[in-house]
């Protein structure tokens, strides 16, 4: 006998999946529209992809976003991994302080991070610029908001994400290999390089890709500290404000493809890394 509640739940779940994916699917569909208006489907073409590709403003914003995401994800991965390794040896109140900072950086809304980093940089530059002027005279470089400040701000919260991922991998790591390595007279550095790092690599890579995706998709933090620079989300936001155009659909589709493919690789890396953690003897 078919359970009526089961089939009811199944239909309900199907509806919710449609609700979750239909709007995204519509954006992708309309990106292939040949017509002049965003909301009027005329026919299939790659016309708007061509138009978008030839727009220098889009290209500049896209280039900025890629550069910012790559740099901030690299910083976040290095800082986060180093900190995750160090935190193994930290106990007591100091550990509590770090744990709180990590989770605060992840959980607080982006706007709070935006304001915090804006305030820090404006105060810091306001204090540093006069000193630079005194040292190097009027030709001294004037530090201002721009790409470096976006990179630093993104690294703050993506670093915490890398830290959490790498730390959970360290917790699930096979310790007997490290002990074996030091029993065989490897130096701590060699043990780290040849035993620990290869085991952590999938988690570190997954952390990097997630950090990249976060930075690439972020609007609100960059909005606060971008200064005169534009990132792709900032460009999209200001174009929406001026009116919806078909170009936004093509940019949106490309952005979705970037984040989805990164997400897919991340998921594969993490699954493989967890599977390896569960069956260390089969390596």
């Amino acid at each position, binding site marked *: 006998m078919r359970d009526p509640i089961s089939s009811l*739940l199944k239909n309900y*779940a199907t509806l919710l999946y449609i609700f979750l994916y239909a709007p995204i699917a519509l954006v992708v569909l309309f990106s292939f529209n040949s017509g002049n208006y965003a909301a009027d489907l005329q026919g299939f073409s790659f016309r708007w992809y061509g138009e978008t590709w030839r727009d220098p403003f889009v290209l500049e914003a896209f280039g900025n976003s890629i550069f910012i995401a790559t740099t901030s994800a690299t910083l976040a991965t290095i800082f986060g991994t180093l900190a995750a390794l*160090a935190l193994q040896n*930290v106990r007591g109140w100091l550990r509590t302080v770090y744990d709180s900072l990590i989770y605060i950086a992840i959980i607080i809304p982006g706007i709070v991070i935006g*304001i915090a980093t804006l305030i820090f940089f404006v105060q810091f530059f306001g204090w540093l610029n006069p000193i630079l002027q005194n040292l190097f005279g009027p030709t001294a470089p004037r530090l201002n908001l721009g790409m470096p400040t976006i990179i630093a701000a993104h690294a703050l919260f993506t670093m915490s994400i890398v830290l959490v991922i790498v730390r959970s991998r360290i917790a699930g790591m096979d310790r007997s290999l490290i002990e074996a390595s030091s029993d065989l007279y490897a130096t701590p550095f060699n043990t780290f390089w040849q035993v620990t790092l290869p085991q952590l690599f999938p988690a570190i890579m997954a952390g990097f890709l997630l950090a990249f995706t976060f930075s690439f998709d972020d609007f609100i933090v960059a*909005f606060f500290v971008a200064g005169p620079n534009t990132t792709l989300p900032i460009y999209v936001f200001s174009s929406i404000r001026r009116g919806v155009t078909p170009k*936004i659909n093509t940019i949106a589709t490309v952005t979705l493809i970037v984040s989805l493919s990164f997400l897919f690789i991340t998921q594969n890396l993490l699954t493989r890394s967890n599977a390896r953690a569960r069956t260390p003897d089969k390596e």
Partner: protein
Amino acid sequence: MTVSTRKTKLTTALLLAPASLWYLLLLVAPLVIVTIFSFGERAPEGGYAAAFTFEQYLKLPTRSTPFINTLWLASLGTFFCIILAYPLAYYLATRASAQMKSILVALIIVPFWTSFLIRTYAWITILSSRGIPAILERLGLVQDLVLLNTPFAITLGIVYNYLPLMTFPLYVSLERLDKRLLEASKDLGANRWGTFWQVTFPLSAPGLITGSMLVFILLMGEYLIPALLGGGKIFFVGNALVDLFLQSRNWPFGSAVSMALNFIMLVIISLYLWLTSRLGGEGREEVSLF
């Protein structure tokens, strides 16, 4: 202290140095500066002038509308997220077949990791006069229906964007539920309805509380949904903060607003910790989103 422990300590400190610098300069120091600013005055050209006054806090009631909008629509959005997410999480945890389960759960999480801006943007055309209202009008159901730039559009945007974040913790707590308890309840003569309300629902409370807390906290700083789907007519605290920090450059008042927001978030997190500690060990389970 032996040489080797001193060496370990030095290594630990060096490894932690970059992360500590980032947390200190970009998270801790700014929070201190915001606190100081909130007692200051606005400089004539914008920005901050040193002072010690409660003026900014006394002015807070003039911006009570964004706070009321945020708290009211965030509560409404969280409520609808729970109503919609619960049956879905329940289906995934109890009915979905083992091989389909991992795919279905991944499909819930995927939208959450894609651009928030684009997910919100997707609704603009759907809700605009050429979207759903036009279809309903053609069917002869309504006339001159306006959906975009209304509280309805904002609530819909909230539910759409935050549904994954609510579903996932709920799913985790329902998935971990000991199935023997359900059988015991059935053996003791409880019907389905009774079993659900007396066994399943209370045991899913940790997931429910975690999900609600995550959604509500993030909604406190929401900017994009009201900006895009509310057409700038319905201000959230996030919109007020963007206005105060980036447009009118009234930093001291902006700092006071931001302090008030931090205070609300602190209250929510304390409430969350209190609730989970009352639920005992089970509430403490970490619901990882990664």
